[in-house]
């Protein structure tokens, strides 16, 4: 006969969501305590794909280590490489040529769009709508093609290197980006028709997974999660790097603090990224795409911290150098890790279905958390 299904003394049901579960987008393991359908507690268990990238980087040279970081948050691999490259440049005090800076920002924004696209499709799928996933991938495919042509790979490009970019842009790059912008502007309205306005979707999202501005800061959430609660956290605005200072764009802020606000922040960021691309696509300055650097890079003794805004929030690269060719200690402050720590706070008290919505809007990428 059936044994009593594992309830604890209070009659709460403990279920393991993951490590293989459709809603966790990877090998995240959540131990969820439920009372009926209501969530009492969520305990994340990590480490299923922990590769100890920080330790690996200690044995790689300053030129080599950034390729590993593509494998952290693989959806914004360019931006990870960018952070590493800038941190090394900060140590070497290398001036990056303006052409390289513009190219870097452009691929960053393309990556951000691609990442948000995938998030949008995957989140709609979490809520049970399958079609948006394919529609999102259609546009993401365009970005991947652009990346493939210029950077040589589709996901983990290793294109941004210390000193600039690995290769000059492909002759077709500008043309293709322009046609992508045109296409994307029309498709993004379709997204709103299909998902944003949908009454079922809005009911699933509004008022779900609310987090206050104080808690956002206390939990260290950054990126769209923080901005949805009205906290200024866009590194591109707060501590501008590269050419972001000279660009016209808005930091997207919402005040709702719930899943719908987080959704809207990302949807509006898509438009904002397209706006940035529009400003740059015809204004790529001529010149070198890479600064002259030594063959073997050696950072002076000291500590260097560089942060960038990835699609998920603030990524910090902290290098402790002893003056050798390899970093002594390297730490990645990953946005996903902090966002995940708030999950218990955000989703407890909601329904099981709300957990999926909250998790979807936190936009967790597990390799980013597990590093």
């Amino acid at each position, binding site marked *: 006969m059936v044994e009593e299904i594992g309830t604890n003394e209070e009659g709460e049901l403990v279920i393991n969501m993951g490590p293989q579960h459709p809603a966790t987008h990877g090998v995240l393991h959540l131990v969820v305590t439920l009372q009926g359908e209501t969530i009492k507690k969520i305990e994340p268990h*990590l480490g299923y794909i922990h590769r100890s990238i920080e330790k690996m980087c200690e044995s790689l040279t300053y030129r080599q280590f950034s390729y590993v970081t593509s494998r952290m948050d693989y959806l914004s691999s360019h931006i990870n490489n960018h952070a590493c490259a800038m941190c090394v440049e900060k140590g070497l005090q290398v001036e990056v040529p303006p052409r390289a800076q513009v190219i870097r920002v452009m691929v960053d924004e393309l990556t951000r769009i691609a990442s948000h696209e995938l998030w949008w499709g995957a989140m709609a799928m979490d809520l049970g709508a399958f079609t948006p996933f394919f529609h999102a991938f259609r546009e993401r495919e365009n970005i991947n093609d652009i990346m493939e042509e210029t950077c040589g790979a589709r996901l983990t490009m290793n294109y941004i290197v210390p000193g600039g970019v690995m290769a000059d842009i492909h002759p077709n790059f500008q043309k293709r980006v322009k046609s992508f912008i045109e296409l994307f502007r029309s498709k993004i309205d379709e997204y709103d028709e299909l998902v944003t306005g949908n009454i079922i979707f809005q009911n699933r999202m509004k008022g779900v997974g609310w987090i206050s501005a104080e808690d956002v800061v206390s939990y260290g959430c950054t990126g769209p999660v923080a901005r949805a609660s009205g906290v200024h956290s866009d590194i591109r605005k707060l501590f501008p790097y590269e050419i972001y200072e000279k660009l016209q764009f808005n930091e997207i802020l919402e005040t709702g603090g719930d899943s719908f606000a987080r959704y809207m922040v990302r949807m509006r960021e898509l438009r904002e990224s397209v706006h940035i691309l529009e400003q740059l696509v015809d204004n790529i300055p001529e010149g070198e795409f890479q600064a002259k650097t030594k063959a073997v890079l050696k950072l002076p003794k000291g500590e260097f911290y560089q942060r960038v805004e990835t699609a998920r929030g603030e990524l910090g690269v902290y290098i*402790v150098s002893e003056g050798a060719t390899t970093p002594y200690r390297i730490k990645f402050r990953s946005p996903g890790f902090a966002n995940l720590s708030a999950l218990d706070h955000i989703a407890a008290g909601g329904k099981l279905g709300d957990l999926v919505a909250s998790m979807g809007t936190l936009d967790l990428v597990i390799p980013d958390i597990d590093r």
Partner: protein
Amino acid sequence: MTSEALKSTITALLPEAVFEEGGEWLALQLVPEQWRPLALQLRQHPELGFDFLFCVTCVDWKTHLSMVYHLRSTKLGHHLVVKVKLDRSNPAIETVSDIWRTAEFNEREAYEMFGVKFLHHPDLRLLILPDGWEGRNPMRKDFEDPVNMIKL
């Protein structure tokens, strides 16, 4: 607030504070006992208001460990780096997870990777490593995995 002003405000709170020059941001060197009382002050002092702990790092210096806390004030926009020197054989420091909630996970990570004990931490368990791993700290410099080490 400029780093000079920060320096004087912090010196008023903790006269024996040792500052470190040369970095991007003002850095402060502490011993473990000084850390928690100062942390409370840093969080609550109206002129400091460090409400965002954005990076928690542990560094193994072979002779000792040091915890590095990167702090920022979201309202006032200034930064502070706090470095706490720990004994390598028995590293222990008070937790700050009730002051900054983000520290809870970061301290758990530092606990398993470096073996730093965070006193009064609400839930100091392994987060990343598999159960039964206790005792070996993979991120320390002298750690060698007998099974999976690829030497280059």
